[in-house]
């Protein structure tokens, strides 16, 4: 059974029994920037996005050419999403260093030993008048061991997987809460499954499980840069979450399509506890609401927002039909405190 199918089966079973507490989820968030009094999505105004590779970007086992090829494959995967217009162009090798605001979007290794648990990071420069991106850099922390081997290498992190995640950020996507973790007997925590490349916690070193975009990633990039008949072929599901009659902020809401076995999700993002999940395949969906009480909340929301994590996992009491090219209409889910 594939991981996706296993995840899907898990959530269906949970829905049927109405008692399960754990199932993987799928979600996407977009970066937002304030332009005047408006909050708008952070995205590239002009395509293709032109990027450069730092010409000193090598670590043991990864030559500059290897680096260029690995990030090139990651860029190509995002660009291949058929419902998205996102496109990238390799500009060549450059002396530009990631993190320097020089008008050049650069990718490369930088040694950051003090960021002892950060594998990579993306930075942006933004036109504050339009909200459009001017430049975006990605650094990969050379304090870690890296690999570009086709099957991965024990003890080394897969460059292509991490690049795929960071390029999602570079394109304007925030983190997803779509992952499942476990605490290990010998200490530490590891990812068991992630149904979104944009899940903020990396798979363990040696794993190449993060090399493939998931349904949630596709929905996110298609929502940001729609192409073809994305709006007409897909639909959305919207509603609100309440607890004791009051709106809940930061609840993770998952829409599972039992026909396609895919899930996409989002969060309640307004003071009224409202959510909208876009990019859904038409048809019935199971709706699950859960707290992100296992997460580093600050990697999803800024600290000024009070995210409510004190409630139980709750399923909507009936299937919700998502129309082609339309919205489900408001779905209200009442959750109970723990």
């Amino acid at each position, binding site marked *: 059974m594939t991981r996706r199918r296993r995840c899907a089966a898990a959530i269906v079973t949970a829905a049927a029994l109405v008692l399960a*507490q*754990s199932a993987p*989820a799928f979600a996407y968030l977009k*970066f937002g*920037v304030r*332009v005047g009094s408006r909050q708008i999505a*952070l995205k590239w105004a002009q395509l293709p996005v032109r990027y450069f590779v730092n010409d000193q970007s090598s670590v043991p086992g990864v030559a500059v050419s290897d680096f260029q090829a690995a990030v090139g494959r990651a860029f190509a995967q995002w660009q291949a999403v058929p419902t998205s217009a996102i496109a990238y162009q390799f500009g060549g090798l450059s002396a530009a260093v990631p*993190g320097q*605001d020089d*008008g050049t979007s650069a990718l490369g290794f930088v040694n950051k*030993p*003090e960021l*002892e*648990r*950060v594998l*990579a*990071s*993306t*930075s*942006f*420069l*933004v*036109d*504050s*008048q339009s*909200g459009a991106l001017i*430049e975006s850099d990605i650094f990969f922390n050379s304090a870690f061991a890296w690999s570009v081997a086709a099957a991965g290498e024990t003890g080394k992190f897969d460059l292509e997987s*991490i690049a795929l*995640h*960071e390029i999602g950020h570079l394109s304007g996507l925030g*983190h997803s809460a779509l992952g*499942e*973790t*476990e*605490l*290990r*007997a010998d*200490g*530490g*925590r*590891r*990812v068991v499954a992630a149904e979104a490349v944009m899940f*903020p*916690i990396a798979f363990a070193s040696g794993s190449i499980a993060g090399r493939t975009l998931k349904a949630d990633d596709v929905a996110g990039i298609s929502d940001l840069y729609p192409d073809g008949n994305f709006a007409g072929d897909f639909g959305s599901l919207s509603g609100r979450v309440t607890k004791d009659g009051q709106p809940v902020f930061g609840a*993770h809401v998952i829409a599972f399509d039992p026909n396609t076995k895919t899930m996409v999700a989002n969060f309640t993002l307004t003071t009224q506890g409202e959510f909208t999940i876009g990019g859904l395949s038409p048809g019935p969906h199971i709706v699950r609401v*859960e*707290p992100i*009480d*296992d*997460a*580093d909340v*600050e990697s999803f929301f*800024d*600290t000024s927002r009070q995210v409510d*994590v*004190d*409630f*139980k*996992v709750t399923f909507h009491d009936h299937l919700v039909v998502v129309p082609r090219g339309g919205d489900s209409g408001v779905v209200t889910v009442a959750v109970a405190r*723990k």
Partner: protein
Amino acid sequence: MHGPNPRSVFAAAIVAAILVGPAVHATVVLPADLGDLSRDAIAIARGQVVDVEVRWADDRHSIVTDVTLAVESYLKGGLGPTVQFRVPGGELGRLRSIVVGAPEFAIEERVVVFLGARGPMVPYVLGLSQGVFRVSRAADNSGWFVTPPALLPSAGRTVAVVRGDVNRRPMALADFERTVRALAAGAR
């Protein structure tokens, strides 16, 4: 602000005559449980934030925030009655640098921070926001609690982290500190 005219660092970008707005960062992290943090920290301090200063980093290429904590108690180590640590990002003039996953601090808030340091550098928070726990008063004024709910080590067995687990709730400060002291002393 320290050092000579750091705005010149951004000259190249501003030459383009484009208003430069917020800088945003995003990260991929390795997760840490409370045992990892307690073991790896050189100092664990509970205190109140008394100063937050945004400045340019020494390399003049990035914005950082220096946070000063008036220490009430050390759960591990000791760095004096006040301790200053650095976090990436911050807002300086019209520039705002945001590191997704990096903690932000407000004056007067109470926190427990797990600090690391390498050589002569200013201490930093372990694991970005993973190394920060906010201390707040219970809604019914019954005592102090720590958020977010801590992920405790699994006590010798592998366990799934389950969302919505009724047992994972904000921990009373006294219980949290007792647990951290034990973990810092070597318990798992």
